[in-house]
């Protein structure tokens, strides 16, 4: 395979110290040419390796410096409101250091800000492939998916984010993510799922007034007034001067039908924030309910019978209005249930007076029952009432045992 070493004197092949042809001495480096050459090549490779190491280090440092420079430029462009320029700068940074998480995440944020969600998602998916358990990446993917309208993906990534790994303060991040997820679910009317997340969040939550208040708001939005009231109460207890917490408690109590405590909370809230229109409106309705409810505890007999009579006649007017609205014709053509109620009410209308009801407990019970029933039926048929009718309707809901 290889040519044998040759004698330097006569050129004949030689493998010994002395040439067999001319007898000349053969230097050792001629006889041992191949191992010597191997050794030289290995030494050269080592030297080449060392030189390349130096070169690569120097080059890498230069690249990292360039990357950082472009990143800084990108930050300046973001701050100056130039997202497209920032995207170009961040891509320039990434060409020199495409593993840098900071650059990649910043690019994602900038792409989102510049309304390029698909590109942002693509970059995030690459990050997700590398770190599927990263809570931050999953959260960003969830938000992007929500933005794109991909509900299934959004839910999946929110759950991954909640269970994911967070670098610092994982408990707080998980909690915030869960709350955000709950808001997302509420926004898409998945109230059952939202309540489940809020319950989990409540268990993990420290006793912090702001957090409890937020929980209360979300519970309220998710339709769980009981837990909302509990959280608002806690928030109010921790921070009694928080008008929002007090108002929230009042609203929750109102939704629960606990009008007495709702009134207490709402009056306090109004004292704290007199200009809060929502509180004022709610307080007014609450007061109306408490004043109109004939079955309110602790009422004197005369007051009860007066309320009962007022409720009856209010309901009678309501049924006539609702019937007229539905048919546009006289009672004879009314819907059956309304017609039946009207007939029953007409049968006793002349006798329903405050004094008569005071004397006749059965008549009072019947009058109240009919009034409540009318409010319930007309609410379904003709929509939610307003004013005194609304108050009577809410009062009826407090006493389901009085339903016929």
């Amino acid at each position: 395979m290889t040519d044998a070493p040759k004698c330097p004197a006569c050129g004949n092949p030689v493998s010994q110290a002395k040439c067999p042809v001319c007898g000349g001495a053969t230097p050792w480096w001629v006889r041992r040419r191949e191992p010597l050459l191997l050794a030289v090549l290995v030494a050269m490779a080592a030297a080449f390796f060392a030189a390349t190491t130096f070169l690569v280090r120097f080059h890498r440092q230069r690249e990292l410096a360039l990357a950082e420079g472009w990143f800084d430029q990108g930050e300046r462009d973001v701050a100056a409101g130039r997202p497209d320029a920032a995207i170009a700068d961040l891509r320039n940074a990434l060409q020199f250091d495409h593993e840098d998480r900071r650059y990649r995440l910043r690019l994602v944020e900038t792409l989102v800000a510049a309304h390029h969600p698909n590109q942002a998602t693509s970059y995030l998916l690459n990050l997700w492939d590398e770190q599927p358990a990263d809570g931050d990446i999953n959260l960003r993917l969830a938000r992007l998916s929500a933005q794109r309208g991909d509900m299934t993906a959004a839910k999946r990534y929110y759950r991954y984010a909640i269970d994911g790994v967070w670098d610092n303060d994982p408990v707080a991040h998980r909690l915030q993510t869960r709350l955000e997820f709950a808001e997302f679910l509420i926004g898409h009317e998945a109230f059952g799922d939202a309540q489940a997340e809020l319950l989990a969040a409540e268990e993990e939550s420290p006793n912090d007034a702001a957090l409890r208040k937020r929980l209360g708001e979300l519970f309220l939005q998710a339709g769980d007034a009981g837990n909302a009231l509990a959280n608002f109460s806690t928030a109010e207890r921790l921070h009694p001067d928080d008008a929002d917490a007090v108002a929230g408690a009042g609203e929750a109590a109102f939704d629960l039908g606990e009008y007495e405590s709702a009134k207490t909370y709402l009056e306090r809230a109004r004292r704290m924030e007199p200009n809060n229109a929502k509180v004022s409106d709610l307080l007014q309705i609450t007061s109306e309910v408490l004043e109109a409810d004939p079955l309110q505890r602790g009422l004197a007999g005369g007051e009860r019978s007066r309320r009962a009579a007022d409720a009856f006649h209010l309901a009678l007017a309501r049924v006539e209005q609702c019937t007229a609205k539905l048919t546009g014709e006289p009672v004879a053509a009314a819907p059956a249930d309304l017609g039946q109620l009207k007939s029953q009410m007409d049968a006793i209308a002349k006798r329903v007076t405050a004094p008569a009801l005071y004397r006749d407990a059965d008549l009072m019970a019947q009058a109240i029952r009919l009034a409540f029933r009318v409010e319930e039926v007309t609410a379904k048929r003709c929509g939610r009432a307003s004013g005194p009718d609304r108050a009577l309707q809410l009062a009826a809901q407090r006493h389901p045992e009085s339903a016929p």
Partner: protein
Amino acid sequence: MSIRPLVESAPEADAPRAPLRHGMREEQFFLLVAIIIGVFSGLAVVCFRIAIDWARFLLLTSALTPPFPRIVLAPALVGVLVAVLVMVFFQRVRGSGVNQTKGALYIYDGYIPFKTVIGKFITSALAIGSGHSLGPEDPSLQIGAGLASLIGRKFRLSRDKMRLIAPVGAAAGLAAAFNAPITAVLFVIEEVIGRWTAGVLGAVVLSAVSSVVVARWFLGAEPLFRIPTYSMVHPGELLAYAVLGVAGGFAGVVFQKLIGHLRPALKALPRWTQYLQPGVAGLLIGLIALRLPQVQGAGYEYIDQAMHGQYLWETLGILAGAKILATTLSFTSGTPGGLFAPTLFIGAMLGGAVGEFERLMFPHLAVPIGAYALVGMGTLFAGFLRAPMTSVFMILEVSGDYSIIIPVIISNTIAYLISRALQQKPIFEVLSDQDGMHLPSLEEEREVSVVRVEDAMRPPSMAPLHEDTPLSVAAKLAEDSYEDFILVSSTARNWYGISRERLRTFLKEGKGDLSLSAVMPLRPMPYVHPDQSLDLALREIGDHPLLPVVHRADLKQLVGVISLADIMTAYHVGGRPLT
């Protein structure tokens, strides 16, 4: 005149090979040399990549979109400089380097001057760094081959080994450039060596692996591209990839025809124009780059962007077309540099364009654009470079994702078939023909039909005799046979032969009672099988009048005989024996 066999008939009968002076066998020494070549090639390619980056920083700045007027002037002025360097100092560095390496293998006994290595390094780094639309992989292949040639010469390797050393270095260079050893090995076998031969495979693999180890030591093991995750959701996606295959096939043909026509036209111009052609090409590329800066250089960062859905399908299509044009200008003007990276770029853009378009038409096919871009790269590799196996494994290797294999195979196969139907010769063969070299190719080898023993053999005129047969009986049977030469089988599944004349002689000597085994030669005769090539039979027959053709599953079963005359007849009439 007897024909000496060129190969030994039984391996166990080989004389031991003469060991090297220092106790190492020839094959082992060659493998050791291959490792050394791999190390040097890996280091050289790392330096080459850094040189390209520095050239780019210096000439075009570090921005992905270089500022004006650098974007126009850099490739133009550097083009002129490169032309002067090539014309005056480094005449052998023109082109990609693949054919030049192949030429070293088949024409120049593996000789590549070291000056070529230096020249290729400098001129390609300048050209690619200044924005010419060329890639670094092919020059890396030639640099590796050149280093291998130098090391081989220093070791004074034999001519046979010197011929093989160039592909060993080529694989090392390409593997380091691509960070993909399997791809490099397959490409070298498919394109550089042009035939499947086990003889050099070990060395090629070793050199590729050692160069990749070195390259990864410095540059990391991360893949060239960050590929989005792919998983097939709907079988209808395969149709989408078939469409991509069609598009890739036609794009490959267009690209090849452009290069095939423009290159000789430019070479035919007066010699003085060749000092300016790369400069003019650079100027035109610079002007294109004013609107489409993505066409400059290798373009890997833009492939990455395409994979992440940065561009609309119209933009992707335009980029594919512009890159075809830019690369044609750079390559045909004689600027040193490679075609791999531009091929991948064009394929990625085309794949992305097809994918985006299909996604708009069929939204339920929610395949990420990155998957189309990835498959597109392989498709154009198969359709333009006509290296189908390399293209499949390349995609698997750069993506690390096996789930993409079916779409890749479908798309690549369609592109390859379209390209073959519309363009007879692959691009490298076209280029070598234009340079006046006729080099073999794997496609050429596949086209050649192999003439086999079964095409030439004939039935024996008499059944073979067993070695225990008495000579008297054998002689009588031989008298009735048409053959002058009788075949004898032994219990040990060996075959022997004896002529009719010798049998008569033994009878006259009164040895009729002896069995045939007493007079057989010590050494059995060679045999062949029906499916083996006739070339092997020609080498095995030697002095023997006949060769037994035996069944592969039963060596004692004679299926035919073949003589030298039968072999010559088969070759004369193209493989069909005369009846």
